[in-house]
């Protein structure tokens, strides 16, 4: 069965051009970029090229790019660094809808005695900037807010938030893992100090990330050892993956317009068709500015895992904010923070598209999903009474 892959916020296909770019750096050009000899030197020059390509996508300067192993490492490094830079500041601000890479770390730091404030969101998943203004103070070391939410695609006003953070002398970090490659970003005109990126979300392989660090921002490394990355991240460079990420960033820049027209068009058609075909459904974050590739739809009276398994029978790969698929039993912390009613929080499905998505694939989902929802509602003890035959 050919897969219809609509789970690109989870991970993406490695672009074949990206794979070709990295291929020689395993068996042939395997030198260590730090070596003095010519053999390492030719790897070094490709790593430098990759750094320039990543910087170009971000509107940054190449020496502001630190290669890491993943988005999670970048997030951890940013927050840890801020706390070491400001040992007297004991307050961290984040949001209730962050990715666990940030949220878990902040909650662990709370156990260690830091004060952690989690800013809330409204029903559409929009950040409460007023709350940020109220809670920030001279004790705040870092404000860490995601650029775009992985479950709903809702985009946060990170620039405004960064200005508020700077006004109190705090550092500002953004987990931009879901945003980069999907919407234009220009760090040259930004107040953001640190930014996390993950390769496998934009058609590069897994195991490569970036921490953007604005020039002049004080920093303490998470990993110490060798002098790689100007001593800001020790450890031999994952040269092949770095080179792949450079290529992926170059391609992402070239596809940026299509992402926001063609991909967005398919996303809109998918959600509009599903919403008109299926009663008792709502788009999570529908009222907010969102990423062009993401839609999260809540179907009342059915449970997400059951929907995913039935979709999977047609080769359709999506994801759910449902408790039953995540190990935790609480429906997604993102949907709960948005106040999505319990009646439909359990039945939310996220579709995340990419430039590889085709119209034919969207047609298949539009054809197959409504009967799946109807079938599960017929089976549900709540379906009939609540829907009055309108399944």
């Amino acid at each position, binding site marked *: 069965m050919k897969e219809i892959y609509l789970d690109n916020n989870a991970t993406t296909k490695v672009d074949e051009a990206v794979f070709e770019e990295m291929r020689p750096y395993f068996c042939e050009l395997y030198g260590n970029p730090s070596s003095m000899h010519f053999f390492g030197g030719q790897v070094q020059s490709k790593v430098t090229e990759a750094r320039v390509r990543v910087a170009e996508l971000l509107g940054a300067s190449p020496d502001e790019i630190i290669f890491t192993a993943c988005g999670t490492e970048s997030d951890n490094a940013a927050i840890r660094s801020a706390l070491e830079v400001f040992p007297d500041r004991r307050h961290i601000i984040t949001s209730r809808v962050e990715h666990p890479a940030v949220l878990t770390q902040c909650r662990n730091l709370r156990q260690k005695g830091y004060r952690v404030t989690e800013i809330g969101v409204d029903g559409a998943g929009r950040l409460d900037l007023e709350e940020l203004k109220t809670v920030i103070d001279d004790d705040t070391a870092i404000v860490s807010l995601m650029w775009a939410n992985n479950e709903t695609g809702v985009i946060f006003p990170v620039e405004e938030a960064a200005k508020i953070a700077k006004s109190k002398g705090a550092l500002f970090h953004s987990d931009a893992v879901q945003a980069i490659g999907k919407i234009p970003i220009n760090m040259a005109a930004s107040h953001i100090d640190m930014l996390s990126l993950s390769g496998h979300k934009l058609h590069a392989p897994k195991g490569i990330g970036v921490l953007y660090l604005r020039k002049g921002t004080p920093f303490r490394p998470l990993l110490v050892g060798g002098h790689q990355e100007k001593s800001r991240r020790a450890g031999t460079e994952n040269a092949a993956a770095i080179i792949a990420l450079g290529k992926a960033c170059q391609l992402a820049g070239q596809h940026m317009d299509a992402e926001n027209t063609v991909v967005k068009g398919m996303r809109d058609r998918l959600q509009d068709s599903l919403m008109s075909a299926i009663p008792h459904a709502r788009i999570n974050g529908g009222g907010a500015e969102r990423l062009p590739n993401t839609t999260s739809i809540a179907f009342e009276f059915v449970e997400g895992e059951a929907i995913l398994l039935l979709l999977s029978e047609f080769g359709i790969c999506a994801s759910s904010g449902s408790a039953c698929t995540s*190990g935790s039993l609480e429906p997604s912390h993102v949907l709960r923070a948005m106040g999505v009613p319990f009646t439909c929080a359990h039945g939310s499905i996220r579709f995340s598209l990419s430039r590889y998505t085709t119209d034919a694939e969207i047609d298949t989902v539009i054809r197959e999903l409504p009967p799946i929802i109807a079938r599960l509602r017929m089976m549900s003890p709540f379906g009939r009474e609540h829907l009055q035959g309108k399944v």
Partner: protein
Amino acid sequence: MWDYTPIVKDHFLNPRNVGEIPNADAIGEVGSLACGDALKLYLKLDDNKDKIVDAKFQTFGCASAIASSSALTEMVKGKNLDEALAISNQEIADFLGGLPEEKMHCSVMGQEALEVAIFKYRGIEMPQHDSEHDHGPAYPDYEGEIVCKCFGITDAFLKKVIETNSLTTAEQVTNFTKAGGACGGCIPKIKDLIAQVLGEAAAQTRVRPEKLSNMKKMQLIQEVLERDIRPLLWADGGDLELIDIDGAKVQVAFRKACAGCASSGNTARMVEAKLRDLVAEDIVVEEVSA
């Protein structure tokens, strides 16, 4: 990926006995939309009102909830009420070729709906709970103190599930009942309940072998430590290591959270009591700092 057996998958994709029975003799309902799963079970009895001749279900929930309900309806057909009542959640899971542990609560829900249906039919009082949490208790027939506010689960229900499934960690209890799976605020209480049930169980069942060779005794001590004691300590972030066995003297060293813990003396007594119950009455546990 789905960690389900082919039988679970089959009962999910082709569920048996979906629907309502208009003139059902017994109906059992458990769960709620808020809990993320719910089951309404309908039973039809024969003219003697004893044998189950038909069973149907409606389920809101994940694949394993639907499969467990389907399995349950197949299992009860043809059984009389007492036989049906004897079905345990483990038997439902076994019927399906097993369930992933984090999905065991689905089999518990099935067993529970069956019990509620039969109790109700027999006119056994079903006390409704009146509590402040945002939705009704998941298992209304188990009156008691609400332990898990997120899912509305009482201590009486938890103790029953802990006991029938011989659960020893809070994580297992969450997998079987969902209690503690959301905010986690009740996990300490769940641990207390496990300790209570284990204490009671130990008092009841003294299945100690009569006379043991030294070799056998050492083996048994190690088994009991691995199976019954270390998991309990892990639940609290602690651990212990067996240092030496010399006749009846068992030397252990506490590790992790247990090391240097003010109440490690109590823990040592707990270990001793357990070993005396399950291995030999003369065992003395000594804490050493090796």
